[in-house]
């Protein structure tokens, strides 16, 4: 699982690649801490290369969403695969996030 954070203007973009499962969730959570710390900004979770997400991964997304809600920021989930979109849908998480596709 790889996490790369870049800054574009004032937006923080986290590129997630690989499988976000329980085994790596603690490490990923720590790597994404800058997003929580800067949750007053627009935060983009770029999931183009994210292959899988478990409940632990959903919890990390949720933590970032809560921080953004508290600090007045915004979370955008970008380019999720059909499989991950279905995970979001079947847990009721899809409508919690602004989910965008770069193709649209």
């Amino acid at each position, binding site marked *: 699982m790889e996490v790369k954070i870049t800054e574009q203007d004032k937006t923080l973009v986290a590129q997630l690649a690989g499988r976000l499962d329980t085994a790596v969730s603690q490490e990923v959570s720590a790597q994404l801490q800058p997003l929580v710390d800067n949750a007053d900004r627009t935060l983009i979770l770029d999931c183009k290369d994210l292959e899988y997400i*478990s409940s632990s991964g959903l919890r990390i997304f949720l933590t970032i969403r809560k921080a953004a809600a508290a600090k007045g920021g915004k979370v955008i989930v970008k380019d999720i695969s059909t499989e991950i*979109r279905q995970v979001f849908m*079947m847990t*009721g998480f899809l*409508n919690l996030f602004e989910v965008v*596709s770069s193709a*649209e």
Partner: protein
Amino acid sequence: MNNLDPHCQAILEEYRQAKPACDDAAVKVKATLEKVFKKSGLIVAAIESRVKTEESLAGKLELKGSKYASLADITDIVGVRVITFYIDDVDKVASAVERLFKVDWENSVDKRKIHEIDSFGYMSLHYICSMDGFPYRFEIQMRTVLQHAWANMNHDTGYKSGVEIPLEYRRSLSRLSGLLELADEQFSEIRADLADYRRRIQALVASGNLSEVPLDGDSFRSFLNTRPFDPLNRRIASMNQAEIQEVSLMGYLEVFKMLQCKTLGDIAKIIKDNSEGAFQLACYQIGLTDLDIISSSLGPQDLCIAYIVKVGGGKAGLKMLLDIINGVSDTNVMMAEILFEQTSNLPFMNQ
């Protein structure tokens, strides 16, 4: 300023000495009011504060300096203005001011009451106040947004007093004041009526007479307070011993309106008739996964999916649902197709 006599010059010098204390007092009065309003839940449009400028004071002294023995006789060196949305709130603000500061009743004016019964004009409540630790009096003006608008526009005519305005225009301004007074009263009445409506709706929801309650923002909020989707969410969560993440469900008001629900009774019927279908859908989707977190929107979401497919709304109906709850997107077409396939083959469709 050069025209001022020595007496007025002395008052002006006293002002210069007192200016820092006046600045502090203006900030303090404003902050005190803000704190009390916040604590009591009173929402006002604005609180403004200012200290009279030296130029403005000099102008005042030039006109009527002999009237004042010292700076302490001038009551508006520090001025604070509270602008409320509703006319009833002016009295609430006044009540708070009376508790917080010492009011000099002799010099305070209720300009809302100085008009004859058949005349209209400047409407504002002015209190001259004092407080411990500040040797001068200060003025607090209280008025509504509409009274404020009228006062500002009247002031903007360039005439220093109403009597200077040509009669024809004075009549127009007076007429406008009457109109705004009526609007202020109407706004207050609407607010009181809406509060009554909400209480009535809450009572109907609490008594369970849901078919008598029209569906709107207030009634839906009251309905959500009874937690109507909890049994379904708990049943779904129990499959995987999942944690339920609470989220606002107010967005579903638009969904239930799209589904032609006119009353809360219509929603209650959808819940009663489709909970089994929603549960079967959730079983199919997450029963064989290790997902142990769901959002509280899952219950209403699956309920609406089950209902739409059951009543023949098809993929187009599901697409409309997804457009509302997830935002309009091309991918909703694909998701609607997947959901339709998943739901159409569930046992509840044949029951």
